[in-house]
């Protein structure tokens, strides 16, 4: 039943067909509320990539999705379904915040890397605990990571309301980080280089996201540890046969997964908000699941899928902004359709395409 497809169909045409189907259904929905879907699509596309600021936001959103998507992908290669990116990122934000606020007496080139490490470490810990529970206690990681999302939310709400909040305002958010204890934003960087860039939350974390994608590729496919990880993911029995300890591998995989999700606040907290705010994770951790699914758990695919979702977020935002009858709930419906077609129904067109291509090839 494999129905092997040419590579370009599998990786190119199939996702495009899925995307087209999603947009088609979305068009019907848009049409149903009396709006010309071509106009809506034009705004969506223009809003996502049509002007420099749009690119800034699209890339900024994509950066979040790259981190959370990679987190899901790495865990997936170890046969684990990490749904806890949201909580891991949230707690990782605490790590970054503690360093950015507590050690801002240090110069930027020290405090920023430290904060990044702290974010990764906190995220790793928050991922490794469910990993440990699965490996040693048999508690399923799907369940525990969901529960750890709630634990993270409870912990962070408490800390932001009681410990970390900026007392001047009484809002559940910290004071602003010192300017040197933040990620360089793209507009700042541009200003330094002497040209004007539009304001957007785009910041150096995007480069970190690309580095993380490269790291994931090297780790998973070019290291002994990555080999062990994939072996455990493919067959625990084969791993045991090969002398690989599945339990330890699971814990390490979840730690790496958590660390990747934990880099998200580098973009969101240290780059965009430059302070810790309540619920800054905003569901990006969950979108990461769809991103990984659509990106076939490969770093390149994750980056492309993240870009698509970033564009949908930013374009959708503009769409809601420009057409008042399209409210944000409709935009969420459209995004949901894309996830549905590209993720859950990923293989819907596969049999048809497989049949088409085997027929096309038969006379050869």
């Amino acid at each position, binding site marked *: 039943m*494999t*129905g*092997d*497809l040419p590579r370009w169909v599998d990786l190119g045409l199939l996702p495009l067909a899925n995307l087209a189907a999603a947009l088609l259904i979305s068009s019907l929905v848009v049409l149903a509320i009396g709006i010309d879907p071509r106009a809506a699509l034009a705004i969506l596309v223009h809003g996502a990539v049509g002007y420099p600021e749009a690119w800034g936001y699209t890339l900024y959103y994509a950066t979040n999705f790259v981190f959370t998507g990679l987190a899901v992908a790495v865990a997936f290669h170890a046969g684990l379904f990490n749904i806890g990116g949201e909580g891991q990122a949230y707690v990782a934000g605490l790590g970054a915040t503690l360093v950015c606020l507590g050690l801002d007496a240090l110069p930027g080139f020290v405090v920023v890397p430290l904060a990044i490490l702290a974010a990764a470490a906190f995220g790793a810990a928050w991922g490794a605990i469910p990993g440990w529970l699965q490996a040693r206690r048999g508690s399923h990681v799907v369940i525990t990571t969901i529960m750890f999302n709630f634990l993270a939310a409870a912990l962070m709400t408490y800390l932001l309301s009681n410990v970390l909040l900026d007392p001047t305002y009484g809002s559940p958010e910290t004071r602003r980080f010192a300017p040197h204890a933040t990620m360089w934003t793209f507009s700042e960087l541009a200003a330094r280089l002497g040209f004007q860039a539009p304001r957007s939350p785009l910041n150096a974390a995007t480069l970190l996201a690309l580095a993380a994608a490269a790291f994931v590729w*090297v780790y998973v496919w*070019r*290291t*002994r*540890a*990555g*080999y*062990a990880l*994939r*072996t455990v993911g*493919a*067959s625990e*029995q*084969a791993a*045991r*046969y*090969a*002398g690989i*300890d599945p*339990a*330890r591998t699971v814990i390490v995989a979840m730690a790496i997964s958590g660390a990747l999700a934990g880099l998200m606040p580098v973009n969101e907290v240290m780059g965009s908000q430059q302070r810790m705010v309540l619920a800054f994770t905003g569901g990006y951790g969950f979108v990461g699941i769809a991103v990984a699914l659509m990106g076939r758990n490969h770093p390149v695919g994750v980056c492309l899928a993240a870009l698509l979702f970033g564009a949908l977020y930013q374009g959708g935002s503009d769409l809601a902004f420009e057409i008042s009858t399209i409210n944000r709930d409709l935009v969420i419906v459209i995004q949901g359709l894309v996830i549905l077609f590209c993720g859950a129904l990923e293989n819907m067109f596969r049999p048809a395409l497989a049949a088409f291509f*085997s*027929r096309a*090839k*038969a006379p050869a």
Partner: protein
Amino acid sequence: MEGVAALALSGVDKRFGAVHANRAIDLSVAPGSIHGIVGENGAGKSTLMGVVYGYYRPDAGSIRVDGTPVDIASPQDAIRAGIGMVHQHFMLVETFTVLENILLGAEGGALLARGEIEAREGLARLMAEYALDVDLDARVADLDVGAQQRVEILKALWRGARILILDEPTAVLTPQETDRLFALLAKWRAQGRTVVLITHKLREILAITDRVTVMRRGAVVATLETARTSQDELAELMVGRRVLLRVDKRAAVPGAEILRAENLRHVDVRGVERLRGVSFAVHAGEIVGIAGVSGNGQSELVETLAGLKPLAGGTIVYKGARLGPPGTADAARAVRHAHIAHVPEDRLRMGLIASFAARESAILGYHEDGELGPGPFLDPDATRRRTARLMAAFDVRPPLPDLRSGSFSGGNQQKIVLGREIDRDPDLLIVGQPTRGVDIGAIEFIHRRLVALRDAGKAILLVSCELDEILSLADRILVMFDGRIAGELPRAGADEKHLGLLMAGSAAA
């Protein structure tokens, strides 16, 4: 050919991507006959039967049942046309009862109760007629494989099959159970029904079939009257060249004791005692064969020796020293470091990883070897080089280190595994079911390599459910039954009947 064929295929053609699995197959099965289909793994037998049973749509060609053209798009269509199939890997829901399994997909309405009552009566009749006794209310998971197979047959009969396709039905049976199955098939033939028997055991083809079709590389190469052919002819047709079915080997020259198992006991996770005190020794330069029907503790024996499963008692002595306790996280690695190699019986679950490239499967267990890359890194070129060398030494085809492991035929997969394990120059090789699902050409090759390894002075422990294999390779034969060694025979004094009785646990050894 007399009268109308019960099942006739003409011009059936099927491709999977680049693989041309069936090439314009013509096949005609006479009613009231037993028709054998033989061929190596990957010859296209299973694909062809998948087409007949509605798993695959053929790209071209047509199927006739009793002379009537039929369009079979799904197993439902096949069942409606009177075709039943008993799969090699049973298609049963283990947690369901026998009755539930038989009714599955043929419930006869939204409410189960009505169909159930009817089914019980009908099944009782069928069971009486064909001596197919099974407890309808037993859970399938609790049945032994022979009984599970009877459930599969009963299921096909219940659905009104007049043409029964059996895919490797004897792989899991004792010789006695095989006899019983063949008696059933013969009775069926006498009633005018039709059987298609897919097997790779040429002896069985000769014993029971009326006609036999030989397939090679997706095409039919010959259809013969069974009475007028021989094992050697069939083997030659299957492989396309002359094959040696018996391994030529000198008498063993056993040396020092390499492995001694003393009173090994193993209790599985469900608390069932799988090994009940197993003791034996293996010497350098000999092949010790362990025969037995699968499920009598052989798997557990191999896995405890390989460090994968813990012992509840007993000791393993290797080259005069006690081996550390198996079943711990590091045991498998320690065993490998001690130059004990292990070819697992379940190739696809343990021996290699189907989704990995061959070069990745070829380093399974050895991924920490220093030569494979600097520090923590694995150098794909290094693994490619090693794999290319193994592939050359073990005649793996196609010799492509980057091809997916699952894309190789069973025999070539097994050569990759065997090559990987022998390549590390082990002092002891533990090998389970070395030729399960392996084609004849590869069997010959693998057997020769095992004998060569023995002649090089290595100790080999061979576990196999294939009596032929044990008889042709082993220098000493142990028979396992119910977690114990039921008897030991020197090769010279072993005959199949005696072994079969030991395997069935019914002989005073």
